[in-house]
């Protein structure tokens, strides 16, 4: 199956790979996995005092589309408020990366990862 140029770009030059210290109070972590293909995705956000996501990192073990989806999301969420980041839809990710139907679940995984990270932040901060 052919990957789109955007997927290949993110796959070969993934943005924001890595980890933050999960015990840092400003850091929140979203962990999700896809049983069907065994992909595992970790997405972390660093939120400033104004509730703005100032940095994001990811680590994904999975196919090119899963890596590209999480890489793209870390780019998109930077500078966004938690509420704005919450609005990111898997369909936007799939469209941006021109994912074929069989890879839509990778974009769902990335949407769920950012939602899980936001939920983790709210839980950590009693929201």
């Amino acid at each position, binding site marked *: 199956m052919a990957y789109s140029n955007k997927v290949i770009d993110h796959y070969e030059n993934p943005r924001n790979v890595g980890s933050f210290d999960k015990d840092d109070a400003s850091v929140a972590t979203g*962990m*999700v996995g896809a049983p069907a293909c*065994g992909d595992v995705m*970790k997405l972390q956000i660093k939120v400033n005092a104004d509730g703005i996501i100032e940095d994001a990192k990811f680590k994904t*073990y999975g196919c090119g589309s899963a890596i590209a989806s999480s890489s793209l999301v870390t780019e998109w969420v930077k500078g966004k408020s938690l509420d704005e980041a919450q609005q990111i839809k898997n369909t936007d990710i799939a469209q941006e990366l021109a994912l074929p139907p069989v890879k839509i679940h990778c974009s769902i995984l990335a949407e*769920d990862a950012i939602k899980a990270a936001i939920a983790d932040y709210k839980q950590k901060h009693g929201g």
Partner: protein
Amino acid sequence: MNYFQLFNLPAKFDLDLTELGSRYLKLQKQFHPDQHSSGSERDKLLAVQQTANINDAYHSLKQPLLRAEHLLALRGLKISHEQRSFTDPLFLMQQMELREQLAEIEQSADPDAVIDDIERQLQQQKKQLLQQLATALDSETAEQDHLAADLIRKLKFFFKLQQELELIEQQLQD
């Protein structure tokens, strides 16, 4: 379609694989399209369809995860095509760590020893999960069925890790 019924076997997770194999061969012979070559077009078509069903059923029942999925589907819990993300953070953290161990194999001083070590971990975890799965499926309650579904999801991650490990092993040998 109830695959267990097709082979006239009890709908249980604990399955006699030798018995399954011999019933499969018998059914396959019985419905082989060649046996129906003198029949009508309709008979021939039915035989071809039935052969396909028998093959599907055999391959699903032979593999523990597919068998467990089929058993749950018969009980009204369909998970084979679900696209829902798995979100158990502790389990996923452990998966992440195992993936990191796999990624570090190549750089290690003694890759074979590391592979053996991971292999042992994977086998042990898989064995445990499969035992829990068997117990959960045997109790036939809705609550235990949902637990079984989660165990199947976890096992899929371990089967994937096993594949990845075998791939690394092959690459190291080449």
